[in-house]
């Protein structure tokens, strides 16, 4: 892979960026991680894109809390859950990204598609890399894939991967 200082977005829009400009924004690739095989595959693809550039990979895990339990006092359990998820994300980042690629860990609560889009907009990420789960067609009609929703609404390009996509 060729080395480049340009961000992924800059390549797509062909915007010239000064090579050594300290003010130029660091490239950021957002990878939603639910610890499934497809999300690990997505992380590996993000690493392949990040290598050779000034790129940070953001690992995001969204904790889905069922509505009725929001009213209960579960703060302690939530904290433990967030800490555990953050530790898992860090472990995954260390294992899959190594020291060559900068990583940032984010754990949020809510609906995955909403939180992913919120973070993507807040940080103005250059790319979202997301793995998809297989679903049967009738269920797909009832609830679109999180990945499909992202591809429609994301403020940046979205790289969609099936779990079955082998790394060549």
């Amino acid at each position: 892979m060729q080395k480049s200082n340009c961000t992924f977005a800059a390549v797509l829009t062909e915007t010239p960026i000064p090579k050594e400009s300290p003010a130029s924004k660091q490239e950021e690739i957002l990878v939603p991680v639910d610890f499934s095989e497809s999300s690990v595959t997505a992380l590996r693809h993000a690493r392949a894109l990040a290598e050779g550039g000034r790129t940070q990979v953001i690992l995001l895990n969204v904790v889905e809390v069922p509505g009725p339990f929001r009213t209960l006092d579960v703060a302690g359990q939530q904290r433990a859950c967030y800490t555990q998820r953050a530790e898992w994300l860090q472990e995954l980042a260390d294992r899959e990204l190594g020291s060559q690629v900068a990583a940032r860990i984010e754990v949020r609560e809510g609906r995955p598609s909403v939180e992913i889009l919120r973070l993507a907009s807040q940080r103005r990420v250059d790319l979202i890399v997301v793995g998809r789960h297989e679903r049967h067609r009738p269920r797909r009609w009832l609830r679109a894939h999180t990945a499909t929703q992202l591809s429609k609404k994301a403020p940046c390009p979205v790289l969609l991967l099936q779990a079955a996509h082998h790394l060549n």
Partner: protein
Amino acid sequence: MIARNEQPNLADSFQHRSLRARLSVRMDDLLSANIAKPAPMEKKQDWRIRNILAPTDFSPSSVEAVMQAAALARRYGALLTILHVIDINPPSARTHVGPADELMRQQLATGRAELNRLSESLAQQQTRTQARIIEGIPAEVIIENSSRFDLLVINEERPGSAWSLFSEHTVQRVIEEAACPLLVVHPRTEPENA
């Protein structure tokens, strides 16, 4: 069930504690343990972008996707394949007067001319490009051919009406069924509304 004004006997107390324990475990399940700690996956060779597929129907948005695919091809030193599918069931067939062969010949001639123009434009920008033109149903041809590529670049319009959930448009079918990593790009002029 334990009455409020009665001292629970040992069995009731045991059941009560058991229920509380079960509820507590269920809460833990909901909050933290419903996702198992991931086991390390087998390491495979890194993904490299060597061959990029960019389908186009020559609409402005699909040509824009081709241009973005070309920029990626230059960045990664990849070969860009521009694919145009001659639709065997085109919308223009409803209003076409004359033999079907004539319509297909017209589409083929137009497709070739547009592909040549696009290829020449990309060649001037130092992009390694090849063009292909195939007859068939666009979504099926793109999906069938996608397995031979490292990346497929496609442009998707922003969400329309809720009825699109039940439709099977070409872009949606490709997004659902592509056999390779798929980069979905959006029109550059679109304001950020996510």
